[in-house]
């Protein structure tokens, strides 16, 4: 088995935000914390594209490297999790993350940082699987139930894929082959002007 991976197919993402509300629904994430968000470039202009972004569960995660209290760790499946008990809310992980994944709840009027929160790949945290305390701190542990992250499972156009990296890349490769030389392939627009992306 390869590592667990997310992949967002920008040719399919329509910015419907199902991934965002699915995440909220599954993990009861409070208002103001977005473990996943959809980013759109060229909004309202030709070339508009969206991708859904969350923690990418890096193999060599910069957040793990920089965390001063070693709260972030990599699981056997290659999922990056953290312990909210150890977290000091310093925000160094936020500095280092290429994706803006770490979130900090606002706990006071001056925006004091609370414990870091981020996408868990629906895999909970260090506590016992599916325990009450795990849910309260990290949300649902779907991995322990043999299920994949709900954001990807509910994606409206199957743009967002999640799971074993080998399987995800197979699905995506097949899709790219199916698209052939059509307007879906990146770079087509450069070769044939005005014919899509």
């Amino acid at each position, binding site marked *: 088995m390869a590592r667990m991976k997310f992949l967002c197919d920008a040719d399919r993402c329509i910015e419907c*935000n*199902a991934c965002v509300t699915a995440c909220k629904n599954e993990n009861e994430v409070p*208002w103001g914390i977005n473990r996943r968000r959809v980013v759109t470039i060229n909004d*309202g202009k030709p070339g508009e594209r969206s991708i859904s972004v969350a923690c990418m569960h890096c193999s060599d995660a910069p957040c793990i490297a920089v965390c001063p209290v070693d709260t972030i760790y990599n699981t056997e499946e290659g999922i990056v999790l953290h312990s909210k008990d150890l977290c000091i809310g310093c925000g160094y992980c936020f500095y280092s993350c290429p994706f803006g994944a770490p979130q900090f709840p606002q706990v006071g009027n001056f925006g004091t940082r609370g414990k870091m929160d981020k996408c868990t790949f629906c895999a909970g945290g260090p506590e016992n699987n599916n325990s009450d305390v795990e849910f309260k701190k990290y949300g649902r542990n779907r991995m322990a139930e043999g299920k994949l992250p709900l954001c990807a*499972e*509910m994606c409206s156009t*199957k743009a967002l894929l999640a799971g074993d990296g080998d399987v995800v890349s197979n699905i995506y490769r097949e899709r790219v082959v199916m698209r052939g030389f059509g307007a879906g392939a990146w770079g087509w627009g450069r070769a044939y002007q005005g014919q899509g992306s």
Partner: protein
Amino acid sequence: MLRKKTGGVATGPRLSSALTEIAGKAIDRRTFLRRSGLAAGGLAAASAFQGGMIQKAEAASDGAAVEIKKSVCTHCAVGCTVLAEVSNGVWIGQEPGFDSPINLGAHCAKGASVRAHANGERRLKYPTKLVDGKWQRISWDEAINEIGDKMMEIRESSGPDSVYWLGSAKHSNEQAYLFRKLYAFWGSNNGDHQARICHSTTVAGVANTWGYGAMTNSFNDMHSSRSIFLIGSNPAEAHPVSLLHIMRAKEQNNAEVIVVDPRFTRTASHATEFVRIRPGTDVAVIWGILWHIFENGWEDETYIAARVWGMDHIRAEVANWTPEEVERVTGVPGSQLRRVARKMATNKPGTVVWCMGGTQHTNGNNNTRAYCILQLALGNIGVAGGGCNIFRGHDNVQGATDFCVLSHSLPGYYGLKKGSWMHWARVWDVDYDYLKGRFASEKLMQSKGIPVSRWIDGVLENKDNIDQPDNLRAMVFWGHAPNSQTRGMEMKAAMEKLDLLVVIDPYPTASAVMHDRKDGVYLLPASLQYETYGSLTASNRSLQWREKVVEPSFESLPDQTIIYKFAKKFGFADQMFKNIKVNNDEPLVEDVTLEFNKGMWTIGYTGQSPDRLKAHMANQHTFDKTTLQANGGPVDGEYYGLPWPCWGTAEMKHPGTPNLYDPSKPVAEGGLNFRARFGVKAPDKWGGQNLLAEGGKEGVGYPVGNELKDGHPEFNMMMLKKLGWDGELTDAERASIEKVAGDKTNWKTDLSGGIQRIAINHGCAPFGNAKARAVVWTFPDPIPIHREPLYTPRRDLLPKYETYSDRQAYRLPTRYASIQKDDYSGEYPLILTTGRLVEYEGGGDESRSNRWLAELQQDMFVEINPFNANGLGIRDGQMVWVETPEKSKIKVRAMLTRRVEKGVAFLPFHFAGMLQGRDLRSKYPKGTDPYVLGEAANTVMTYGYDSVTQMQESKVTLCNIKKA
């Protein structure tokens, strides 16, 4: 303690900086809103959360089992299956419904968050009435008694037509049917629902072209399309899961995706061709495309000869639409339309999709017919991958339309004629004279009621000008947001003039707060569809059966129970529920289904018994994801959800009709041809030709297996006798037919289903086999023509493309020319149009009360092109006033974007709770105010109604925008 990371080099600076750039100077809609929209309401509301609901972990530690309940999303009409995890009666989680052939597990933001509706804290909790400007809790009995007494008093003094029953596209089929029956028994045709203001022009235009007014194919069928032409439709926001199917065609068939719209929509960003038109010029752009098709001989001559009447009249009109004229009117260059025409002609089959952008116009019925004619010219109707895929907007707007929660028809589009009432009287097992006695007069019983778009005129218009005894005095909003209707400030006045205003809804809606009444307002909490069960009809005509997920919250009651309580109060419950079992004031849902099965012959809602529908839901995984046909298993050969028409009785086991008018298979297996609905011969004025199908080729001119091998009129008993087929009737069928009208009994009124059964046994469609008609000689514009909007900025196009003359319609004076004659374009130079956002739906009361959705869109805004904004000195994010010619205005945030063209502004229509700059939050009953409030777009949208259906014009008006 810092640890040095192994492996050294960071791999992501490039992407990282790209993202920083996005986050930094972004002007995308969401960043814009995140920045601007730390909306006081939103955050204040958020801080009021009580925190976690009961969770799976907790529930599991109680040792309670987790059950899965299968329901269907209550937002748009795609019909996505919702799998609910329920423990101890609490909805604790949602799982993807991978087995559903419609959504394959997928959801949009709304579908992925429906659990928050059921667990929502912002619901109406108990019956409430307004006393001296304060909300006061009352009991259900008090509410029904007080409202009932007041209505009876109005009935005595002003007649039954002074009470208006506004129903809902959120009803299940059973509720919609009972609701329609309720106001029939009340004795008025003054009832309606959202279909009037969403697809009424579609239903009228399309049904008058080829028989039925519904989506012809299905979402899944688009897998076979090689071109997809979307006009006035933005499914990426309005029907996101449909994109799952559209993308598949785009990727696997290399299908052309052509988007025609005034805005560069999210759908347009995924298109292969984007055609930007001036709002309200649909007919001109379609004729502009057809011009190239006819010019180059790209039409399907064989198809037209066999299956279309009147195309020559269209050719004559289209000849006027040269590329130069089209560009002058629509703004689209001829070269682009030639490319579009060629793409559509060379990539067949192709499908045409349209939504509100096409329908909501004063000439909306012309638009919908023009789209149909384009498809007929290309020979795209009645083929897999083709069709007119008209996406409907609410979860059961198709069903509520089919049950005619409308002011102009009885269920099944039977109309309001005496014969129609007699038919339903037989089904309901009541005397026609009894029903007649309920109405003010037989004339009013048979005349169209006031449509929802005009109810305010029913209140405000001088009663001498209304074709009924008195003004409307009581208004019932049953699952209907007021901010979905135009002329908001006049609506406020109308609400204040009423004697009685009743809101029956899970949420208070803007109806509770937008007026300044001190009393005479009742709010009754209705249950969600997740708190009851029954069938609903998706856009593709498939029926799905919802299970009850949880028990009704608070004191809410399901619609069927509330309907029963009113019927009981009015004293006709015994008659109305004669054949329906009632338990503790709740009618048995299955009995309701079985009752409408007995009467809905016209559109084939007769074969979908509760048992068959439940079997489909239980065996979702056995259906093919493209054809929707079950392959093996207990429902082998049937199409998912028995898409109507599902002919004959349930015992006949018709599989449903996946694609309408498709002659390539036998009628018994879901094949069909165009309906013979308009006689057998065209009027002499229009040439007098034969209207029945001809061409004599099996699978083209008539469906496979049709023994008559030609066009034929619709079936009645007389015809069966002439053909010598009547001998095949059973004795019971024959007796039933004799009892109805003897030889005159036809396929629509035969309660035994015998006529349909025999016609289909001989391979014939019961409704005859005719040509589609390109000219609707009974409409104001028999040939669809372009007419400028009432508030047009293009005075140079008048009088050539002027609107209609003023006229009386649906009991009311209706203005056209008297508005268009005045030039407002100087003071109001910008075109204003409206549309949807993906996070919200309809009036938005429910979705803005869902915290997961509300967080994503916290602010009402207006899209303005930077060119216009710079001219007006308006900066991005600033507050502005948008004012329209009827002198109402709203205060909203400006969003500068090239999504709209120069000279065009756009408003999303889901907001309410602010009125002309005034915050109405304090007026909601405590704890029921939605998280997000905003100005309603329809506060400023202006007068204008379709010439056939009274559809409101909410896509074109004029406005000016000023800094606030």
